[in-house]
């Protein structure tokens, strides 16, 4: 029998943004954003979606103020593996997805892990040690700030 949707438990989500180094990318420094949404009541497992954004000379997926933009989006899961002291968590990550450069879509996967340190007022710092596999495998570390909401 069908049931109507109901509000889910209000677990702490976080958004993140920062900069990443992409060994095989052009440019090698790119903007990065992510969204983490707990999907278990103990907050151990997160639905994790990340976006890598970079300006390109032409043929971008979309443009902002005349600047062509290429993006890659991946969604998957992050699982809390360990907690170190107060507010420092280590997550493992696996996120398949795709990248788009305006001309075609390619499948890719991001995997590895990240450290997340909560600070005051819901802000935090995140350092990701991940690799991306599209055609080859590239190391792609990222650093950024996070905010609970």
């Amino acid at each position, binding site marked *: 029998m*069908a*049931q*109507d*949707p*109901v*509000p*889910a*438990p*209000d*677990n702490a*989500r976080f958004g993140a943004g920062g900069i990443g180094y992409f060994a095989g990318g052009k440019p090698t420094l790119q903007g990065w954003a992510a969204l983490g*949404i707990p*999907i*278990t009541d103990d907050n151990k*497992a997160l*639905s994790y*979606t990340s976006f890598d954004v970079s300006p390109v000379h032409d043929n971008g997926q*979309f443009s902002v103020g005349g600047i062509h933009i290429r993006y890659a*989006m991946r*969604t*998957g*899961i992050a*699982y809390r*593996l360990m907690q170190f002291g107060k507010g420092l968590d280590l997550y*493992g990550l*696996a996120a*398949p997805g*795709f990248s788009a450069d305006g001309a075609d879509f390619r499948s890719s996967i991001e995997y590895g892990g990240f450290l997340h340190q909560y600070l005051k007022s819901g802000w935090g710092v995140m350092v990701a040690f991940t690799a991306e596999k599209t055609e080859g495998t590239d190391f792609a570390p990222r650093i950024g700030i996070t905010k609970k*909401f």
Partner: protein
Amino acid sequence: MGIHIEWDATIDFTVGEERHHFKIGTIRFGPELEKWLDRYNAVCKVKVFDGTAHFSAAIREEGGAGDFLRILLGARHQIRRQLQPLGVEWALWERVHKGNLMSRRFRV
């Protein structure tokens, strides 16, 4: 074939003594709605982690998210039939309401 899930990847892993099952798939909506997805350049994914399924959609154009949710809710009987054999109890998704991101779920 109508609305169905094409599974992309399955990962079983163990942390300590806890065994977990993760599965990610793409929601296919049938010929007519796939045209809608193309129009919005949208990708709809479902992630199953143990007993919970989480839906997400990447929709480039404004206005597409509401359509997606209506379609998703309208299709929940078909989706439920595919998730029940996997032991999924809850299906979750997020929606933006008055500027706030709100979590919703229905029992599978």
